[in-house]
Every structure is written in structure tokens, then in C-alpha cells.
């Protein structure tokens, strides 16, 4: 007979039906209170009576599978998002119907591919309210976009003694390219610390800004802390000294309305794969007057105007920064993702996620010995729908492994590409659960239940 492992806690193993386990019928109903919807129901349901998570789930085939004997609960959206069938179809359709190289050919397929590719660019521009689609440069991902700004704008604009301000919560893709460029140009990197709410300190940032400041690089939403920075204000402070602002919007563009004109950002970057689009494509938004002054990043075809043996002239932006054959299918896939998201409405997505974020935070707080990083949600402080946390005396890797193997729950453990931040918080690693609009309250409930089970298991062993 299987014995309980800790006093009073019954070990449930729903995924191993051949074992004894004592589950009272009523308790299993509350615990696994999934409401099951058939696919047809999602179209027939009136708006408002079904949560966004439930209504969109059928569009994501990958979510309907079992992992290690349990239903998959995917909570690693900050790492990458899942793709709806609309995007998958767009990709397939591109390759089946009109795949051809863009900008070069005259024939029908090439013209169609070019149209769709440029249409995708327009969709991105509209999505973030850029004033013109020539302000959108397609790159491989946000990391490449930041490198583009660093090598192109940075190398030609930074001088010894110039200062670049970042926060300690930045992703290495935002830090490392500037370290490299700072070394080459003699510029200096300065870092803003966290305040008592575990959010980058805006007072400190304001004080750091001086006439020597040439650039600020800030995350709109932190992938570890869940905090949201006041970009509009930061841009105002920066512009008073003539500094530019590069916004890392990887965790914000997929989840909320982002308007580059409202923000007045000089540069903004995001990746497609975090917003229901395919991997291999991302973009840089840059104000026209800035892009026009910037020299090329990568050299090759597409970005040239005339090529001679001893020199070449370059194309206008955005082509100037898009050397070689682009990721055409992927760009079109991103366009389809934007259509999908716009069809739901970013405000609606944001509101739903706020609800879910608060629910997650609340429920997570009730787990034993848990420490959640980042600010407490309140009227003034909104958190993104993600929580990085640590449970005392249990290594996050152990948590994540057990959650995956025993419960099919996918979270992340590690430093989430934020080593300086983790060092500052005094930990080696943390666990992180991050949601997207196709997650449901039941996902959160299942996560908490599994987490409690996991924690009990490890504590019992000690």
C-alpha cells in the first residue's frame, strides 16, 4: 500500500492509474476543475461569457497534448509563445503557393511574394503605430536588432566619455552589444539599480542622466521582475539632454498596446516568436531621421544602390539594413500573427492578462516559503503575467524537473538571461512561470496544485 510521505498530505498521482492513491471523488473535482469546451463551442459562444483563454485555446494545436503522462500546461511564454493555426497556415501557404525571392524578380510569383513581404512590414508598422513602414527594419530577432543599433548608430555616434545608461535587469542582448561598442568607442556604461519594490529605480535613473548621456537602453517589461517601466517619462527625461532611447519591447509588444509615437521612442525592438509568430524574424523600429544617418550594419545584396569595385553606394532605409535574402516566409508569418492578435485586440489581451497576472501572483503567494521577485501588484503598480520565484531550500531546477516529469507543467529555471540581476538578488537561479492570453485560470490552478505537491515532495525528503 502506498504510504503518505508527509503527515497529512496525500500524494496524488493522477497520471499513474495503476497505482494505489487515495483521492476522494469530490476533492479531485475541485482540484481539476477544468471546463472542457469542444472546438465548435468557441465559435458559438457570445463574447464575454467565456474567458479569452478558453476561446483561443482551440486555435493552438500544440497545447492539446500530454507530456510525461500528464496534460501539458505550458507556462514558459516569456521564453517563446505558441503559434495559432492561422500563422501555421500562412507559412505553409507561402511555400505552397507563391514562394519566390523578393524585390528582384519581375515574374508573377516574385511580385506576389514581394507584395506580401512588404505588406507584412506595413502590418508591423501599423501594429506599433510607426508613422511609416520605412521605419521598420526586419532582422532575425530582437538581439540582432539591438546589435544593429549598436554597431551602426553606436559606433558612429559614441565618443570617449559618452555615457550609456541601462538597468541591471536588462537582458544580455541589451547589455553585451553595448559593452562591445563601449570598449571600441571609449563610452561608459552605467547601471540603474533596483529600488525597494524590486523595480528599476526611476529616481536613480533621473539623477544619472546628464549632458554626457547619449543613450538609454531599457526594457519596457522585465522578463524576470514582471515590472513595467514608464517609458514615456524616461523618453522625456532623456530628450531634454539630447539622449536617445532604445526600448527593448520583447515582453511588451506581445502583451499590450505599444504606440511608438506616444512613447516617442527613438529605437524599439521586438521578436516575432514571442508574439505568436515564427522564429527567425524580429524587427527594429527606428525614427526615420535617425535611420537615414546610420551607416550599414551587414553588407551584401539588397542593401546596395550601386556596386563598383572600389566602393559602393547604399540603399535607403530600411533596405540599407537588410542585406541578403530576407526571411520572407517568416515575415509573412509574423504578419499573420499580427492579424491574429489584432483580431482579438491588444487591449483585450492586456486586460485578460492583468486579471490572470493578479490571480497567479495571489495564488503563488500562498505557496509555502516562497519568494516572488519584482513588485507587489497594486493600484499604481501593474505586473506582467509572469512570476519569477524561489522556494526556500529547493533548487529551482529540482522544482522545474519534478513539475515537468510528474505534472506536465512547463516552467523555466535558471537565470533567465539575467545574470547581473540574479547576482543582485543574491541567487544563482530562479524558477519562472509566464502566461499568455491562451492560458486559463485552470492552468494557474493546476500549476499551483502541482507546485504544492512538488514542494511537499522535496520537503518531505529533507
Amino acid at each position, binding site marked *: *500500500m*502506498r*504510504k503518505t*510521505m508527509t503527515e497529512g498530505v496525500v*500524494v496524488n*498521482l493522477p497520471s*499513474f492509474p*495503476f*497505482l*494505489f492513491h487515495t483521492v476522494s471523488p469530490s476533492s479531485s473535482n475541485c482540484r481539476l476543475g477544468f471546463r472542457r469546451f469542444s472546438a465548435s463551442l468557441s465559435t458559438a459562444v457570445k463574447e464575454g461569457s467565456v474567458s479569452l483563454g478558453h476561446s483561443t485555446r482551440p486555435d493552438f494545436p500544440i497545447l492539446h497534448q500530454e507530456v*510525461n503522462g500528464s496534460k501539458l500546461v505550458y507556462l514558459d511564454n516569456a521564453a517563446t509563445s505558441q503559434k495559432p493555426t492561422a500563422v501555421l497556415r500562412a507559412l505553409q501557404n507561402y511555400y505552397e503557393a507563391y514562394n519566390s525571392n523578393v524585390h528582384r524578380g519581375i515574374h508573377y510569383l516574385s511580385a506576389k511574394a514581394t507584395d506580401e513581404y512588404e505588406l507584412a512590414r506595413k502590418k508591423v508598422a501599423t501594429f506599433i503605430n510607426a508613422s511609416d513602414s520605412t521605419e521598420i527594419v526586419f532582422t532575425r530577432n530582437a538581439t540582432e536588432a539591438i546589435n544593429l543599433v549598436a554597431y551602426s548608430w553606436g559606433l558612429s555616434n559614441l565618443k570617449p566619455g559618452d555615457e550609456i545608461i541601462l538597468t541591471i535587469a536588462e537582458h544580455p542582448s541589451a547589455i553585451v552589444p553595448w559593452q562591445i561598442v563601449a570598449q571600441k568607442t571609449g563610452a561608459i556604461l552605467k547601471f540603474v539599480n533596483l529600488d525597494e519594490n524590486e523595480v528599476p529605480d526611476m529616481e536613480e535613473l533621473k539623477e544619472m542622466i546628464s549632458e554626457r548621456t547619449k543613450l538609454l537602453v531599457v526594457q519596457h517589461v522585465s522578463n524576470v521582475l514582471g515590472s513595467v517601466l514608464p517609458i514615456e517619462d524616461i523618453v522625456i527625461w532623456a530628450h531634454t539632454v539630447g539622449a536617445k532611447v532604445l526600448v527593448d519591447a520583447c515582453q511588451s509588444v506581445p502583451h499590450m498596446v505599444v504606440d511608438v509615437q506616444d512613447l516617442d521612442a527613438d529605437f524599439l525592438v521586438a521578436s516575432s516568436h514571442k508574439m505568436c509568430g515564427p522564429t527567425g524574424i524580429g524587427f527594429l523600429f527606428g525614427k526615420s531621421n535617425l535611420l537615414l544617418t546610420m551607416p550599414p550594419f551587414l553588407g551584401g545584396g539588397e542593401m546596395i544602390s550601386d556596386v563598383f569595385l572600389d566602393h559602393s553606394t547604399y540603399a535607403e532605409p530600411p533596405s540599407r539594413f537588410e542585406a541578403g535574402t530576407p526571411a520572407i516566409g517568416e515575415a509573412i508569418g509574423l504578419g499573420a500573427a499580427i492579424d491574429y492578435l489584432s483580431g482579438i485586440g491588444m487591449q483585450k489581451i492586456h486586460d485578460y492578462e492583468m486579471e490572470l497576472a493578479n490571480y497567479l501572483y495571489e495564488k503563488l503567494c500562498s505557496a509555502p516559503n516562497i519568494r516572488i521577485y519584482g513588485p507587489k501588484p497594486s493600484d499604481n503598480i501593474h505586473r506582467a503575467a509572469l512570476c519569477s520565484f524561489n522556494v526556500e531550500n*529547493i*533548487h529551482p*531546477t*529540482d522544482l522545474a*524537473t*519534478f513539475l515537468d*516529469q*510528474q505534472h506536465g507543467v512547463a516552467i523555466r*529555471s*535558471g537565470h533567465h538571461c539575467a545574470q547581473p540581476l540574479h547576482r543582485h538578488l543574491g541567487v*544563482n*537561479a530562479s524558477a519562472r512561470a509566464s502566461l499568455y492570453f491562451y492560458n486559463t485560470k485552470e492552468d494557474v490552478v493546476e500549476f499551483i496544485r502541482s507546485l504544492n505537491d512538488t514542494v511537499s*515532495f*522535496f520537503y*518531505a*525528503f529533507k
Partner: protein
Amino acid sequence: MALYSFSSARFCTSKFPICFHIPKPSKFPFFSNRSISFQKVPTKSPLPLQSSSTQLQPMEEFPPKLQEIIKLFQSVEEPKAKYEQLMFYGKNLNPLDTQLKNKENKVEGCVSQVWVRAYLDEDKNVFYQADSDSVLTKGLAALLVNGLSGRPAKEILRVSPDFAVLLGLQQSLTPSRNNGFLNMLKLMQRKALELLIEAEKGNGSSGNGQIENDNSEKPVENSNSDSKVDENSGVRFGSRKSNEDSSNGLGGRGMRIKEKLERELSPIELEVEDVSYQHAGHAGVRGSDGETHFNVRIVSKEFEGKSLVKRHRLIYGLLDEELQTGLHALSIVAKTPSEVEAN
């Protein structure tokens, strides 16, 4: 329903010294001495995977302890109990000295931190020690430590990582940089190989000049009786090409090392060489003032009558302060005047 095989003989043989730690019954149902008897359910086949895979190494080639461990895990069918068994191994692992938790001993590719250290006993068998901050990886490390320790290097080198599949722990065997288990085994095998090479080359001159082998050592004379504090990693026998001007470019630490050794050991020959540049880029080096790795060649009467291990212990003792403040590793050649003359 799955039942467990519970033959006490298996757990408490002399081959499993760690299992003599019998936990309190209330916490470990797996090892409880409640009066419940289990019978082993005959499984479909002893090694269900062997029929499908042609490449699986035959059990007989594994070190005997490893075979026992594999069989033990196979008899436990329920995954949770497997984890408990794993963690139990980890719990009984001897803690690793903090000094040994350095870059040379760190397993790459683990999301948690894992260190492994190897040394030879008098019979040239390889022994391991390991530690980790995550209980599951500690368990895996302990499994390897228990399974592989006490065996000759050649046997250890023959072990193919496929056996992990037999454990049923759903260990991925993809050779990626993130596969901690695979990297653990690889590191242990690499260390065994290094120890083997050192041993075969004999005392004194190895001459292969590889800095990365700092972790291997060869305390051929009565090493096992010494406490593990003596056997520090980062110590390696072997002559280096000597630098005529050994104080060329020595910084503060280098000079301090030289002064200390000169004062305490009155050597007739002393060379201190800063080779930190060869380690630049290691995570352990970043943030220090750059003086992290040194070669030391010292000839002194003080070493007469002392075993190689004792000589090293002496030097390490003198430089303890440096070790606490950023000195990472020393590569030491310590001889007596008569030994030098004989060569």
C-alpha cells in the same frame, strides 16, 4: 499495480557503504521497516530496451557497483520512488571541500552547479567526490560517484552513457551543452583519463604542458590515509619549461608568493610564473585582479623526508591567505636538492 522489490541484502552489501545510513522510518517509506512484504512483479524483460537498441552496452562491462545501481533502479518502477532513491544517494554523498569547488571541477552545462573531483588511490583506482546545489543533480552525481568509484580508469572510460536509459529516469542523452548528466559522466571520464596518463608517465615529468589538467593528481605514496583537505585540485606534477627570469612581470600576488616561499622554505631554487592569462575568460577568473593561476617550481631541503602530498600541503598552508583572496590554482613542482642532483 506496481510493487517494490525490497531485498535488504541488495541495499546493505559491503559494496554499498553509503546505504548503511538507515533513515528514520517515518520519512522514508521506501526503506521503512514496517512489516509489509513486497514481491517483485516479473517485468516484461529485464532490459526492455535492449531488444530495440543494438547499441546498448552489455551489463557485464559496467563496473559492478554501477550494475547494482542500474538493477536497483529497474526494480523501482514508480518514478517518484526513483527520485526518492536518487535523492537518497545524493543525501549520503560526502560534502566537497569548498576549495575544490572551482572551475576545473565544475561540470559545464548544468543549470544547477555541480562539481566533480577525482583522485587515485595506491592501487591506481579512481575515486570521485561530487557536490551540487540541486538535490536531483546531486543524486545523479552521487549515482555516478558510487557507481564508478574504486575502479580502474580503463573500466570507467569504457562506460557508455546509454546506461542512463536503463535507469528509467528519462534522462536525455542528447549531447548538447545543456545535458548535465552527460557532461558529468564525460568530465568524470576525462579526469579518469588524465589520472591514468599521469600515472603511466610516472613521477615528475609529464611534459604535456596542458594547463587544463590542473585537477588531476598523483599522490602515489600513501595518499588515501591523508584527509581530503590535502588533496587539493589545481595541483599537478610535471615539469614545465622553466623561465629563466621567473619574476618577470609578477604582480603583487606573485611577489607575495615568492617572498613567502623564500622566507619559509629557504629554497635553493625558486621560480614563480604567473599563467593567469592562459585562464583568462574563465568565469572564476573574472572579477579577480587577474592573478589567479601560477606555476611554482621550488627546490628546498625542507622537503626532505616528506611525501609529495605533504610537500604540497606545506606550500598550500603557507599560501592559505592568497587562496582565500582570489588565488585559484597552483601548479607545483617541489623537489629536494638531492632529487635535483640525481636527475
